[in-house]
């Protein structure tokens, strides 16, 4: 298949197709980026084989954060799984909660109330904003522009305050549980949210001026890490990474869930499919999320139930079945494959994180022939969060 990177220069290939890399020759050097490395996206590592400043081979190593969630969930009851799922992805935990809750609801045959769906959507969009803000800081930081990270982390922190007052926690919200959500919007939430959104928009304007209209940033990122649109499907690329390549993949539009059918938006699409385009798509997507949050808050029904009646969660049993629930998280398609067997515990849970394909197969493919200096920038541009790879 034609999915292999260009290896016309070096290293040479042996007859069996493997790469002829002789470390003792002194021509090649093994360089580990991570896990203890500031340029790595979280606790993972990439084993680089470099020739001069150029990477000839990269291998992703994961598992540093493996806790065996899928195994642990098999010995926890359905409600007990609810606090644990959000730990699978730290920067945007809510998708785990939503996908898990929706999967359980579907197999248990219950329906979350309408207002709960609105609040769920709100939370997911807030989480997306957070995740993108973190990404923007990281992307600029990986290329040595620290100030962007300072600004975005600040506004992200404001959003965390909103999360805190809504859900009662900063990072692991544990708010969306099977059957609905845990609480209602606090008083005056809309007003404070609007202030936060304004602040975010202001900062984004500055980010646009200093990061995107920046000669050096452009010099570094334009053309870097080009993903051929042909590669999108074979490599299972989803989310902004795919949209930057011109493929308008967005689960929110393709297979709408929650209240997305009632919101007005168009998937943000880029054209150039390089690091710059991906950053730009995410920036615009972030602005769209800001708009979506506004839409949600204005269109949301004013009252209504937040939880459906659950059976006694201590002995909750769900009949045999299997399902897959997906959502569009800030990195791409996030999904839960849940299998039940009629007992009080899941038979199997499989988490499909977008980073799984992005950070392993795709990264290993893209990393070939780039400069060592660009490795961090490229990795960040795929927006990978390692815990969702190894779980």
């Amino acid at each position, binding site marked *: 298949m034609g999915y292999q990177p260009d290896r016309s220069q070096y290293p040479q290939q042996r007859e069996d197709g493997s790469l002829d890399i002789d470390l003792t020759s002194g021509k090649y050097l093994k360089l580990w980026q991570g896990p203890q490395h500031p*340029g790595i996206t979280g606790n993972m590592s990439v084993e680089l084989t470099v020739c001069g*400043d150029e990477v000839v081979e990269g291998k992703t190593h994961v598992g540093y954060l493996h806790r065996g969630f899928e195994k642990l969930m098999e010995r926890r009851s359905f409600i007990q799984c609810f606090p644990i799922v959000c730990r699978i992805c730290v920067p945007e935990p809510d998708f785990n909660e939503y996908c898990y809750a929706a999967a359980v609801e579907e197999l248990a045959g219950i329906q979350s109330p309408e207002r709960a769906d609105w609040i769920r959507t709100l939370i997911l969009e807030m989480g997306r904003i957070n995740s993108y803000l973190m990404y923007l800081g990281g992307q600029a930081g990986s290329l*040595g522009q620290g100030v962007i990270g300072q600004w975005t982390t600040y506004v992200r922190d404001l959003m965390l305050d909103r999360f805190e007052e809504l859900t009662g926690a900063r990072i692991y919200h544990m708010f969306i549980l099977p059957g609905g959500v845990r609480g209602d919007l606090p008083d005056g939430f809309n007003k404070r949210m609007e202030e936060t959104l304004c602040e975010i928009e202001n900062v984004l304007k500055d980010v646009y001026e*200093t990061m995107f209209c920046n000669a*050096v*940033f452009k010099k*570094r990122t334009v053309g870097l890490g080009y993903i051929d649109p042909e590669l999108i499907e074979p490599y299972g690329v989803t989310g902004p990474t795919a949209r930057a390549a011109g493929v308008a993949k967005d689960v929110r539009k393709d297979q709408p869930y929650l209240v997305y059918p009632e919101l007005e938006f168009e998937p943000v699409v880029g054209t150039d499919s390089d690091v710059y385009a991906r950053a730009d798509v995410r920036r615009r997507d972030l602005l769209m999320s800001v708009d979506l949050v506004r839409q949600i808050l204005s269109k949301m029904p004013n009252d209504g139930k937040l939880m459906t009646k659950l059976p006694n969660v201590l002995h909750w049993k769900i009949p045999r079945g299997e399902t897959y629930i997906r959502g569009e998280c800030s990195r791409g398609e996030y999904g839960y494959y849940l299998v039940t067997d009629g007992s009080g515990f899941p038979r199997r849970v499989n988490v499909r994180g977008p980073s799984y394909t992005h950070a392993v197969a795709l990264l290993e493919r893209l990393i070939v022939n780039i*400069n060592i200096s*660009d490795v961090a920038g490229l990795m960040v541009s795929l927006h990978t969060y390692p815990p969702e790879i190894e779980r």
Partner: protein
Amino acid sequence: MEFEWIKIPYSLLTLFIVINFGLLLTALIQKIGARVGRRHGIPIYQNYIDLIKNYAIRSSITHGFMFYLGPVFRLSGGVGLLLFVPTIYGSEMFSNLSFAGDLILALYFVFFGALGMALGAGESGHPHAAIGVSRGLSQMTAAELPFALAVFSVALQYQTLSVTDIVAAQQGGVLNWTLFTNPFAVTAAMFSFLGSMMRPPFDVVLAPQEIPIGPPTEYHSSYLALMQTNRVIFPVAKIVIYMNLFFGGAASWPVFFLKVFLIYMVSVFVGVAFPRFRVEQSIRWFLIWAMPLGILAIVLV
């Protein structure tokens, strides 16, 4: 020329002032950078504490002879650079050990520390250090070239290789500064200055996100403290040269402090706003933008 022994305590006094000034200046610069990032940043005295802390680390390891000598070379480069150029124009006390051909020696010292560092860091055996060194040397070569051209141009302009004489030639008003008499040389030199201050967009040598801080990766405890000391002396010393060559020197300490600060701020002003170039991009940048200016400066002179 007869050597006056009194110069030695005088230069040590200069050194002392410069070290303290440097410690505070770098902290202030950091605070300014932090301010752009909407925060307060380190306390102004933080550098002193860090320095004591690093000397107070109990254990230290060595990777060999050169590893040990690296910071020493680096520091002597900085100290040497400082001591062989006059700090305060017209002051007997603070003209240090300057002599007729000190400009050449100063240029030598600019390289000396870096080379020592390269040897030491290379000895540390850490691949990141090695990569940092190779990046550093190539970038520095490219960056110093316009500077050398500018210096050459200035030397031609004033017909002397003595820094004191060059400063003397610039007295008598702002418009007498080389900045205005030979703007191309100054621009070329300032471009080079950006490249040598280890700030974005030319800090790929240290780039923590790529090769965790590059050459000093393995340095720690008192080695690191030595390097920290150098890191406050060297930029000041270097700026002193720039100040003397291009900005009319300083006739008193307050003027000195102000000018050093302002010149330092040039690199910070650019550094905060931009990400960093890759090494070959920055070399290309120097060759395309700074070099022609330097050549132009020489030609025009």
